Structures are given as structure tokens and as C-alpha cells.
């Protein structure tokens, strides 16, 4: 019953986070989806990843989305799509059917006994040590790029910030002049 509830929560919250018009509400639905995904990961035996997903997916990422949405203010998110809806739904439905057929045919219903010769910590820090090194480099590169992006705003002249506004070109021109 719990697993069925988790799957239902994931489907409903995911669809709502895509369909809702307000970005703040979409971030909240995304957080609930992450929590349900973490519970499914815990049920599958991936306890460490479940904890990381719960802390990052439910804590960090929605807070960043809320921060970004509050910086940008209210805006329209319900724009007509370029791809026709029937084509998109048909393609996605075909992909989901193929993916489901492949997964249900190949993944055994009962989990294979895990080889406990190497623990998760040993695997992460020794066998996959290069991955951890690259992850550290990526974290620093990400932080530096974000700082660079956000600091570039203060250096940008006013004309650059206003002259390319496509919604109000008259106001932008008058402001530049």
C-alpha cells in the first residue's frame, strides 16, 4: 500500500509541477516529488542516496527555485508550445510504452543479492576516487561560475540591461536616449 501511494504521489505531484502557472507552487510540488522519490530509493535499498536526494532534492533545489522566482517577480509561464500537443503526447506515450516494456522485461522482480565485498564508502572514495576528485572540481567550478554570473550584473551598463527588452521597446529606447 505504501509503494502504491508513493507512485501515486510522484505521478500527481510531477504533473502538477508541470501544469501549475506559478513558479513558487511548482517548486513546492517538485520538493514533494523529490521526497517521494527519496522514499522509493530507500525502499530499493539505496539508503545513502535516499538521504542525499532528500536533503538536496527537497531542501536545496526548491529553495534555489524559490529564490530565483522571487528575484524575477511574477511572470507568465503559460505560453503556447511550439510543438503540437498531440505530437508531443504521442511521442512521449510511445517512449513510455517502449521504456516500460524494456524495464519490466529485463529487471527481475526480486533483487539480486548484493555483493558486500566492498562497502559503499570504500567504493565511493577508493574505487571511484577519480569521480570524487572530478566532483570536487565541478563544485568549485559551479560556485565560481555562479559568482561570476551574478557579479556580472553589477558591471553591466543600464543601456545593456534595458535596450534589449522585447516587451517594451519604446520605454527602452527612451531610457537609453
Amino acid at each position, binding site marked *: *500500500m505504501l509503494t502504491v501511494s508513493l507512485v501515486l504521489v510522484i505521478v500527481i505531484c510531477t504533473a502538477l509541477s508541470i501544469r501549475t502557472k506559478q513558479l513558487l507552487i511548482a517548486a513546492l510540488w517538485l520538493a514533494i516529488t523529490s521526497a517521494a522519490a527519496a522514499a522509493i530509493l530507500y525502499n530499493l535499498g539505496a539508503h545513502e542516496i535516499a538521504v542525499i536526494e532528500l536533503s538536496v532534492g527537497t531542501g536545496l533545489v526548491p529553495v534555489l527555485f524559490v529564490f530565483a522566482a522571487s528575484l524575477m517577480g511574477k511572470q507568465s509561464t503559460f505560453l503556447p508550445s511550439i510543438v503540437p500537443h498531440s505530437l508531443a503526447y504521442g511521442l512521449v506515450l510511445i517512449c513510455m510504452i517502449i521504456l516500460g516494456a524494456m524495464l519490466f522485461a529485463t529487471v527481475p522482480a526480486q533483487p539480486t543479492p548484493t*555483493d558486500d565485498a566492498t562497502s559503499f564508502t570504500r567504493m565511493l572514495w577508493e574505487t571511484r576516487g577519480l569521480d570524487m576528485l572530478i566532483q570536487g572540481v565541478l*563544485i568549485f567550478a559551479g560556485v565560481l561560475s555562479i559568482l561570476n554570473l551574478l557579479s556580472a550584473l553589477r558591471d553591466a551598463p543600464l543601456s545593456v540591461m534595458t535596450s534589449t527588452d522585447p516587451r517594451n521597446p519604446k520605454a527602452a529606447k527612451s531610457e537609453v536616449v
Partner: protein
Amino acid sequence: MTISPVDAGITAVIALVGIGVCGLLLLRNLLKVIIALQIASKGVIIALILAGNASGQMNLAQSLAATFLLIDTLVAVIGLALAVQLHRTCGTLDLKQLTAMHDPPSSPPE
């Protein structure tokens, strides 16, 4: 009505990847596109754990999933920073308008 955790995981993978890809196809707001990308990547993480569960190499699958989780979070963070900058400089997050924008032609040298 009960299903096994493996079947629940497979169903969750199908739902998350399907809805995420559908969002990537249909949405035009940059922030909503990042949300759709996050949703699809959660399905990929569960699929990685399912693969480790099926092959008996759960520790390897968890280490790969940790790497993927970090990269996914970095993509979201950098995408959000880019979205903030685009909104401040261009005034819109509509992907169609952002794609149509280009620099004005440069003046010929004197």
C-alpha cells in the same frame, strides 16, 4: 493492493521520465524547463538504482547515482543563474523570444 518495490521503482521511472520529457517538449518558460529537467533526472537516478539492484552491484550504482545527483544539481544551479541574468538583461524567459534575439549588425569599419 500491493506491488513490490522494484515494480514501484519501474513505474516511477516511467512516469518521471515521461512527464519530464513531455515538459521539455511543451514548455517555453526557462524555469519550467529546468523543473522538467529535474523531474526527468530523478527518474534516471531511480533507474540507476534499479540497475544496481538487478545486477547485485548496489554500491557501484549508488556511487554513480551520487555523481549524477551532483551534476544534476550543478546543472540546475547554473541554469537558474543564467535564467536570472537573462531575465534582467532581456526581460523575458520565453525560449522562443530568446532564440529569436541576436546582436545588431556591426557598423562597417571607417
